[in-house]
């Protein structure tokens, strides 16, 4: 729900472009390498001329990024084989920091070497599933290579949306609308028609949540090429795409979030010091809100799901406590169909296994709440029971802030 759903899986640019080729979406020639030993062979497979060396990480702003050793730029042009090798040796294994990576940056484990091309003009093209239309929508603009959100803000008339009814499928008029919006003519228009077919087929067949090409370019020799590729897939549909799942790069994801997802937990780390453990996404967000309302700062979003069994609660505590910022924990469970006593037993068992050394406030509500609270009080573990959600939030904020 909301921030937790729909979740999406990212892939690298070189993987996205391989998919593009599979679906007939034109892109420049490129070769990916994971090891410098592969570089001579890679260069042989590229056409003569300028080579672009691109760091492969799941974050935008690579071109303007800086490596942690001070080397500038995660995307660079090379005019000779020697220059390709020199740049590659500086990037591979190095850590790139961009405006989207955070200060820690990401290790570059793959480089993508592509042929350089002479750009005539840049465009923006994307297709995504939009909740407002309950359907896929193409987004096209002649303002390519720019921050598209800024274009949408300042000059919304420069962006065209074309909604496709998924039951009807992509029709010729949809494609013409996109083509005219981009102002393409003649053989470039024809190339676009083919590209849109490929994009739509890929989007639907592979259950993408978004495919973004920024920039899409026309070249001086009359080609229409996808020069960048950002492709996201919907988590809920990955069960039917083993080929896509195989492209997942766990090194690009937060290890705590991966660990959480193994146990059916949704976890998102935040900057505060009060951790929360809640059942249900809406209630989990509301719990973060009420901590803030009473002057505290939530350390995370954590939804243990409707059931909240002992194993899940134990894992949830473990994950929470790997965050050194956490100075207190608020557990908020609405018992629903499960008995609060069962949940209380789970919390106590989990607390014993994990050895919680920070203050713990527990608020239970729902089925057999009196029995649940009594069990907590008799458990002998150090925790503060709370009567209501506001009582719980006030208590944990007061305890943590001293």
């Amino acid at each position, binding site marked *: *729900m*909301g*921030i937790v*759903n*729909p979740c*999406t899986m990212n892939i690298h640019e070189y993987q996205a472009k391989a998919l593009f080729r599979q679906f007939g979406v034109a892109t420049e020639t490129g070769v990916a390498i994971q090891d410098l030993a592969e570089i001579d062979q890679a260069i042989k497979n590229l056409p003569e001329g300028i080579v672009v060396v691109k760091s492969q990480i799941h974050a935008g702003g690579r071109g303007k990024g800086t490596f942690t050793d001070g080397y500038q730029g995660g995307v660079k042009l090379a005019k000779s084989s020697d220059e390709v090798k020199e740049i590659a040796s500086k990037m591979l294994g190095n850590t790139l920091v961009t405006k989207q990576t955070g200060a820690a940056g990401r290790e570059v484990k793959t480089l993508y070497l592509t042929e350089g091309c002479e750009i005539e003009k840049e465009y923006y093209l*994307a297709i*995504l*599933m*939009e*909740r*407002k239309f*309950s359907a*896929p*929508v193409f*987004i096209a603009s002649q303002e390519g290579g720019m921050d*598209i959100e800024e274009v949408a803000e300042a000059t919304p008339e420069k962006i065209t949306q074309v909604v496709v*009814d*998924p*039951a009807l499928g992509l029709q010729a008029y949809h494609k013409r609308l996109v083509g005219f919006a981009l102002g393409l003519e003649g053989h470039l228009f024809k190339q676009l028609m083919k590209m849109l077919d490929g994009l739509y087929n890929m989007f639907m067949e592979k*259950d993408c*949540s*978004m495919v973004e090409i*920024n920039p899409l370019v026309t070249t001086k020799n009359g080609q229409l090429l996808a020069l960048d590729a950002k492709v*996201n897939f*919907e988590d*809920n*549909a990955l*069960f*039917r795409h083993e080929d896509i799942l195989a492209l997942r790069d766990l090194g690009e994801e937060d290890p705590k979030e991966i660990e959480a997802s193994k146990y059916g937990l949704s976890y*998102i780390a*935040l900057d505060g010091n009060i951790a929360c453990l*809640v*059942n*249900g*996404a*809406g*209630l989990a*967000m*509301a*719990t*973060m*809100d*009420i*901590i*803030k*309302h009473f002057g505290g700062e939530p350390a995370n*979003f954590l939804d243990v799901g*409707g059931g909240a069994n002992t194993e899940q609660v134990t894992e949830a505590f473990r994950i929470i406590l790997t965050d050194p910022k956490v100075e207190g924990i608020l557990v908020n469970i*609405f*018992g*629903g*169909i499960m008995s609060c006593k069962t949940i209380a037993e789970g919390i106590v068992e989990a607390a014993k296994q994990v050895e919680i050394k920070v203050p713990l406030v527990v608020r239970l*509500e*729902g*089925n057999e709440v009196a029995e649940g609270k009594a069990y907590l009080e008799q458990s002998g573990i150090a925790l503060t029971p709370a009567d*209501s*959600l*506001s009582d719980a*939030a006030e208590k944990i904020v007061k305890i943590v802030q001293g």
Partner: protein
Amino acid sequence: MSILVNKETRVVGQGITGRAGSKHALNNIAYGSNYVAAVTPGKGGQTFDDKLPVFNSVREAVEKEGANTSVVFVPPPFAADGILEAIDAGIELIVCITEGIPIKDMAMVRTALDKSNSRLIGPNCPGVMTPGECNIGIMPGYIAQPGKVGVVSRSGTLTYEAVYQLTVLGHGQSTCVGIGGDPINGTSHTDVLKLFNEDPETEAIIMIGEIGGDAEETAAAYVKEYVNKPVAAFIAGTTAPPGRRMGHAGAIVSGNSGSAETKIAALKDAGIAVAPTPSDIATTLLSVYQP
């Protein structure tokens, strides 16, 4: 009176012979909900709970048992197919509990719904309950009592929170509706507000929303223009980090809407009382509603 479901509702359970589905269906039946059939393809001819006939298709459940409402507990890979089958069988109200249905499948369902007379609640929702009459889905029955407040929410446990607060303060509910938190769903806040507004027995309304999309803003506009009953609301997600998932292109279409601040401003502008914390949902309603 109530909306959507009542004593007369004839429920068919799709996928309730599975482990999770059966537990909840039995709870619903124990509550007094009028289940008339179960549907599990391949298990036709068996019985559920020793008395409910199991059919191979929803069509049979409609023809033989007069089912008019379906609850879907079918696992995510097959859930959209289950909904489409219910639409095809002419089921009036389909309540889909299943979490994790691929969005593409739901886009297809949306198209089929638009061409039919069926209404879908959900997916990824806790269900619908008219206290004392009919409870379909996974809501705990004991938190509610019959009364005159309508409750509509995108979130499950937050619905329980609001309903329970009302019950503890002695105020019952006409109907509690969980519309689900998925990006594509069958029934919106506005659809349910409209039903509550037209229901003579519903005197006041609680609406619970969360960040993302613009359904709450649309609902606020509807309330401003058409609703004269007292309305209170809560929006979850004031402190949530902004749009981690959908990336740039997602933010374009939704523009600036979707943040808690925008939603709360729209609700207040419509004369809706907005609860400052999730603990104050019922008391906020009672500040504008004196039964």
